[in-house]
């Protein structure tokens, strides 16, 4: 498991080359995503004028419509629109949102921390609950406890987030008479206490289903590892069971959980529209979905590009962490 100095050093250039290769692969992915989104959002019927005016748009004269089209920059050829946007995107300027009247980068910078915090809290909660339960279920497998935890996990997997969220909100408001976030969300840096109080229930809602996956994954891989020779050896040496599990078995059993967390983070960082809507959180998911329904082209393009970049980056990160946790995996050659 531990490697000598002599072994690690020569490996570095390969890791660096691997990193560079992966980073180069970003470019075509991002160009592809941007082209796809740019075209798709324009192909669906409706534009920012009908999205804002609704059926009242029918009351516009041709001259009025033209004036609005030029105001929103819709009168320019599509190719020119893309070229302008792409040129801006390279310099970090993703354009201005028609709905918010602010630069897209500013909006993402404002919303992404909320989503990031929610995802981190949900994953942390899920790990705090899922891993201990998974270990216990594996150690006591085929007992009543194991059965109970597995049932719980099943419940977590089959209950959709909006149901859990709605139940939580109902309980909070009718039984406890509170609703920590009633549309008055505060950022963590403004009031950490209140912010955490507002975020904890959405995080539980999001983390609930994920903790079930973590628990099931931990349990099954723990069961597998516990049957391995080296664990038998450790036991044979007379180590206490607790030490065998925490020091020897757990580390290897957690490898698949790392992958799971990576994939989940990738999805969560794209925003979770339903949870954000239910709990009135100003996250990335709501920003993007609203932008689509309002045909806020610049915002849709910018937000999607950002989410795609995050997703790709997280994937890379997971692969690297994976190599660190499991020495059998290396990226040289």
């Amino acid at each position, binding site marked *: 498991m531990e490697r000598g100095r002599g072994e690690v050093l020569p490996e570095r250039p390969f890791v660096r080359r691997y990193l560079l290769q992966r980073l180069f692969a970003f470019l075509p992915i991002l160009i592809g995503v941007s082209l796809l989104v740019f075209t798709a959002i324009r192909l669906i019927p409706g534009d920012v004028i009908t999205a804002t*005016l609704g059926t009242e748009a029918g009351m516009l004269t041709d*001259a*009025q419509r033209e004036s609005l089209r030029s105001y929103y920059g819709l009168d320019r050829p599509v190719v020119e629109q893309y070229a302008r946007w792409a040129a801006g995107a390279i310099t970090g300027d993703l354009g201005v949102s028609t709905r918010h009247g602010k630069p897209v980068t500013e909006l993402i910078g404002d919303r992404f921390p909320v989503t990031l915090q929610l995802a981190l809290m949900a994953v942390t909660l899920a790990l*705090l*609950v899922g891993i201990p339960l998974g270990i216990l279920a594996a150690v006591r497998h085929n007992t009543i406890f194991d059965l109970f935890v597995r049932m719980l996990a099943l419940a977590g997997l089959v209950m959709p987030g909006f149901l859990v969220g709605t139940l939580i909100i109902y309980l909070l408001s009718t039984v406890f008479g509170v*609703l920590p976030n009633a*549309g008055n969300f505060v950022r963590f840096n403004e009031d950490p206490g209140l912010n955490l*109080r507002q975020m904890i229930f959405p995080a539980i809602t999001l983390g609930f289903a994920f903790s079930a996956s973590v628990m099931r994954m931990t349990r099954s891989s723990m069961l597998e590892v516990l049957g391995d020779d080296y664990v038998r050896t450790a036991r044979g040496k007379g180590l206490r069971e607790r030490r065998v599990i925490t020091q020897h078995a757990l580390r290897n059993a957690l490898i698949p959980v790392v992958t799971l967390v990576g994939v989940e983070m990738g999805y969560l960082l794209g925003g979770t529209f339903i949870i954000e809507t239910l*709990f009135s959180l100003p996250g990335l998911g709501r920003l993007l979905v609203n932008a689509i329904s309002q045909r806020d082209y610049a915002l849709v393009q910018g937000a999607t590009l950002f989410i795609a970049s995050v997703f790709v980056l997280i994937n890379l990160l997971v692969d690297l962490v994976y190599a660190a946790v499991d020495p059998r995996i290396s990226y040289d050659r």
Partner: protein
Amino acid sequence: MFKSLRFLFLLIAVVLAFGTALAQDGGNTLIMARAADTTGLDPHTQTAFASLRLLELVYEPLVTLAPDLSIVPALAESWEFSDDAMTLTMHLRQGVKFHDGSDFTAADVVATFTRILDEATGAAARANYLSIASMDTPDDTTVVFNLSTADVPLLAAMASVNASIASSEAIAAGDFSATAIGTGPFILDEWVPEEVTRLSANAEWWGEGPFVDGVEMRVIPDEASILAALRAGEIDFALLNDPLVATLLRGDESLVLNAVPALAYHVLQLNPSRAPMDVLEVRQAMSCAIDRQEVLDTASLGEGTVTGPLTIPAYHVDPSTFFCYTKDLAKAQELMAASGVEPFTLKAIVANAEPPTALSEAQSIQAQLAEIGITLEIEPLELSVYVDRWLAGDFDAAVALNGGRPDPYTMYARYWTSAGNLQVVTNYIDETLDSLMAAGRAEPDFAARLDIFTQFQQHLTEVSPWLWLYSGYEYTAHQPYVVGFEPNATDSLYSFAKVSLER
């Protein structure tokens, strides 16, 4: 093992204790919530109801509507039409100031209507003010509108957020997207789209009030969560759209639910430019086959009343006097047979969740039309896609919730006059409709107008280009300590100026 479980239980207990810790602020700011947010700040171009709810607190028109929809003074103290209804003279309120401190004068009124009528502004409401040929300002507090045609409904059309008076300086500066300088009871301090809008009381307001320090408008996108916030006492006031959510408050003693019959109406719009809806008997057969009360009961839990074209209380006519407003299957079958049209299929476009009852309405109609051999295919669409198709007249039938107006002419000129902007959507006009609308526009006497528009309604329901179904309620809900709010058919929040919090 139990040690580990104890850790878990402790975690849960800490989270619960922490998360449910009480945080109450009982200030003198009215906190309200709604699901949809303002889409922009320009009072002349914004048409979304969500935008109007904010702008009507900040800007004021010359005249406004009382809860009974009668026209009452706002920035104009009085007005008179000439006998031929060709000029409208407005006498303005004196001593009114804009939020930036400048004085309100006749010049601002002229600048406002010039802006609305300028096509470059892109104001959809422009069509309502086209009869204004010129404006004179004999003095600072009088404006004379010289009209190109007799136009009685112009006055009601002016009782709209879209005819709000902006200051001539703001109009000259040209940008309405970031600031809102009006004369209204509240001053816009901050608008964070999709989150919160903060307003403070205008101490210089000409009327009596406001009695609160300000208004905080929050966006809570899920209406069930709005209800939860009300029950938890976190908000004072709520706008509700979905009857299925609002009715959960019926019988709840701790909160006040206001349900006012709405001007907006639910309607099945047929497209008479497409066969076989071009055949009068076919449209009439469909009208006879539909039990409107059943649509209302199924889709809206009976929250509303069956209606004809006009939902304005002053023009109300007993719906049972309209053509086939009592379901008559035999007659429907007779009409189908007389039309010579074989059983057919038509597609109805339905907007997703707009209104929330749309899909249920379509399903109820679908089941009822099946009884006379008409197959209705439901095509659910995302709202903007729906609007796009609708504006192009690209549908066999459309399930719609249309907004109403306080005057029958303003409400329907766009649809049922030969020059109407939305003739491309209705695809139906006849001599009777055209002449009745023209007569109603020029007639100043109410009794005579009532007679004209009753004929209009009866004719329209008989030729059945659209099948009017029902009108629901405008819902607002608030804590019992919110005193002075005047619920009304247009859902206006203007009476927040009169609201006080008596905790």
